[in-house]
């Protein structure tokens, strides 16, 4: 595939993710920090986010499964998840965490369970989209980003086209 076409596809997809609110400006900031000396920066940070989130979601599930729910602990976990999602620009996950914390304050266990479901959903959604953008999903099929780099192009930034 032509580099230009690939770059356009990548941009269009990223743009779509921005428009749909999955990603916000912080994700662009991450892309800004990636260069020839740190070519895998975005991938590395996003991978950390996946690991971190899955651990936290697991901890939250366990915490909410207890006889006596420890709301302080739940709040701490959600605060962490909010922080890491904010740091990579995963806007919808972040916003769900903000709502989660409010429900936690009310010490509403039922509400918290619903919030947890919501966060899990949002996380899975953004994970799928980010994987499409960045990682190898099927062995013979490269992610858009990898295709561009393999074809000799650079990963475009939205503002390149302004």
């Amino acid at each position, binding site marked *: 595939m032509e580099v230009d076409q690939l770059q356009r596809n990548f941009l269009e997809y990223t743009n779509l993710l921005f428009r749909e609110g999955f990603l916000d400006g912080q994700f*662009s900031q991450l892309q*800004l*920090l990636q260069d020839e000396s740190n070519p895998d920066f975005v991938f590395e940070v996003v991978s950390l986010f996946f690991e971190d989130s899955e651990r936290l979601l697991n901890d939250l599930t366990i915490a909410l499964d207890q006889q006596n729910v420890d709301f302080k602990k739940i709040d701490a976990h959600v*605060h962490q998840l909010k922080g890491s999602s904010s*740091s990579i620009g995963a806007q919808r996950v972040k916003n769900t965490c903000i709502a989660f914390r409010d429900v936690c304050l009310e010490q509403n266990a039922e509400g918290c369970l619903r919030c947890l479901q919501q966060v899990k959903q949002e996380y899975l959604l953004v994970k799928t989209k980010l994987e499409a953008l960045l990682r190898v999903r099927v062995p013979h099929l490269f992610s858009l980003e990898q295709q561009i780099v393999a074809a000799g192009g650079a990963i475009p930034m939205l503002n390149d086209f302004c």
Partner: protein
Amino acid sequence: MAATEAQFHVLAVDDSLIDRKLIERLLKTSSYQVTTVDSGSKALEFLGWNEDERANSNEAFISSKNQQVVEVNLVITDYCMPEMTGYDLLKKMKESSILKNIPVVIMSSENVPSRINRCLEEGAEEFFLKPVRLSDVNKLKPHMMKAKSKDVEKPEKQEKQDNNESTEEASSEIQLQTQQSHQTAQSNNKRKSMDDGPTPDRTRPRYSGFTVMSN
């Protein structure tokens, strides 16, 4: 003194691995030497802080111990950390005679005016809302430059200073200028944060798909 090409060394403190990776990349992009630690106590350890009160209040005691302390030009720390908050770390540094002149910057994901004011009053140079960006990191240099110029007039040179009035006047003039720009920057931060009100998340305009780059 031409110290323009000397690399500044920043110590970054954050319990979040992702945020440590981010801040490290931000700082390295700005050509700073970076060390990251995951807690306030590890930060103090790295800085050579001593439990012994005498060591912290008596510079002569330290020099006699001949401690090899790594030079750190600025500490940037997260506010919310288990065991020791960024504020606690700031306070300990300001109470220590060997560490009080190192500029400290606090980062937080929460926009709480009372928290921000408390930190600034305790002596933090800046308060950044997370996620921290390149434009924030660009604000660090003046603080490190100011601290470096202060270093030039260290107490060991006090006797010389008393005898040389003209040098003192010139250096205090420089300090006043940097202080003024520093104060403006500080009050800008205060104003910004107070206008935002007690909302749990900042109200900076959200990007709608386009990167706004300020050069």
